């Protein structure tokens, strides 16, 4: 099938996708008194704890806002990749009874996580904004592109892991370990440089290595507009778009190449 045919087929299955997403959201928040507020409370409490601990170590201006602008996109990325890796294996019984374009399983996971992420980011910004001195600036116009890059990374990596987990069922444990390590390697708990380009907690001779992390430019797409109220440097922006494009293209290419064989390996 050509890419156009695959996209058309996914479009024909949009009702299924909508149902999967709605069902995931309903099941997640059903019969919990706080419902959606759990997805706010969780990062909120996490931020409270992290602020209490790390503001003592790093002495960063407005540390809570810095945390918020990286922690919520990270929650989306890690949550999506983790759930994507089980998305095909977990749909085995459905796949044995009915034809699906398999991409809708990772796509449903990413969509559901994206909805939760966008809602919690903006609700937290609105609620905490007055205390943290959040200003809506023109730089926020970058955010749709930031989310597009983040989603591409999540879907690209998630699609590959969804396929790989079919063949290696224990991959899931490795995924959570790698994600855990990657969280600390990516400047989310700590900034690479202080506000106004002053030196950050990482010595400048090591900062270069941190910038080689492909997720670094992706998270700058959130840190810059939300924390620094500025746009990323053109090279950073180009790096973020390039990382997103490469991961998405490679992920989909691998996924579509393997898609047909999956049913025989389940």
């Amino acid at each position, binding site marked *: 099938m050509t890419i156009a045919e695959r996209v058309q087929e996914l479009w024909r299955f949009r*009702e299924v996708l909508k149902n999967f997403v709605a*069902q995931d959201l*309903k*099941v997640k928040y059903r019969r919990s008194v706080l419902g959606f507020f759990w997805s706010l409370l969780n990062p909120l409490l996490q931020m409270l704890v992290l602020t209490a601990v790390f503001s003592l170590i790093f002495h960063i201006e407005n540390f809570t806002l810095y945390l918020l602008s990286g922690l919520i996109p990270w929650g989306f990325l890690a949550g999506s990749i983790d759930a994507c890796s089980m998305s095909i294996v977990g749909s085995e019984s*459905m796949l*044995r*009874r009915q*034809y699906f374009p398999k991409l809708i399983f990772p796509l449903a996971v990413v969509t559901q996580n994206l909805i939760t992420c966008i809602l919690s980011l903006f609700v937290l910004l609105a609620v905490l904004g007055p205390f943290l001195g959040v200003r809506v600036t023109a730089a926020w116009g970058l955010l749709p592109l930031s989310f597009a890059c983040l989603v591409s990374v999540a879907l690209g990596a998630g699609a590959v892991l969804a396929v790989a987990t079919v063949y290696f069922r224990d991959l899931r444990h490795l995924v959570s370990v790698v994600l855990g390590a990657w969280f600390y390697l990516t400047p989310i708990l700590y900034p690479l440089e202080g506000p106004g380009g002053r030196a950050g907690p990482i010595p400048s001779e090591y900062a270069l290595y941190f910038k080689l992390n492909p997720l670094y430019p992706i998270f700058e797409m959130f840190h810059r507009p939300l924390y620094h109220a500025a746009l990323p440097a053109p090279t950073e922006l180009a790096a973020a778009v390039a990382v997103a494009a490469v991961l998405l293209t490679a992920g989909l290419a691998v996924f579509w190449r393997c898609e047909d064989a999956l049913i025989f390996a389940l």
Partner: protein
Amino acid sequence: MTDHFIRLEQVLLRFRTHAARTRSLKESVVNVVMRRRYGPPPREVIALRDVTLNVADGQRLGIVGDNGAGKTTLLKVVSRIYPPTAGRVSVRGFLVPLLEVGVGANPELSGAENVFLTGAILGLPRHVMARQLDEILDFAELREFADTPLKYYSSGMAQRLAFTVATQIRPEILLLDEVFSVGDIHWIEKARARMQALIDRAAILVLVSHQMDLIERYCNRAVWIESGRIAADGEPAAIIDSYRRSSDGRA
């Protein structure tokens, strides 16, 4: 009702079966490091070979054959669940495979929400299912349990709901594996009438069953599958007769 068809041209389907079902990364890495091969190499099984079949409008095709001959596999190839290793499969028409009851049921969701989910999976958007929801709940006799999560249903109730949703949809091409109906006597009678209506509405029926009387009752053409090949194709009475004689000969 014109121009629906199922066409299979020289379809070959090859499976690779692994002796050990579970493969893990740990095991694979250990095997590479220790330079050993673990377990027997994967075995290839040919499930269907050289299957050429044309089914046209108005045909009710029954498929007979021994267990493991490839009957259900053939339905799965027609419904695109299994992509063929070689050959071509083309289908025109809205096709619904009813291979097992309960596609996509989510135990955490209510009965009504499961109706929408199953409908979407079988190809119907939410607004279409919403119009038919009352009819479905009434037929399944589950109106007062519409908002109860499926996990609190008895197995009979869940079966009734799944059967009713699956048979509510009006496919142009219907693939049916055995006839699924479970429940008390009253329900079986009701289910049979509904299944008859579903079959009557479909332009093309493909039915897999071990019950020869069902094939004779519903079908106007039959195919006998043996070891993944089409052994005979023709009038149901004649095919059933030769299939029976061959089984008796071996018994």
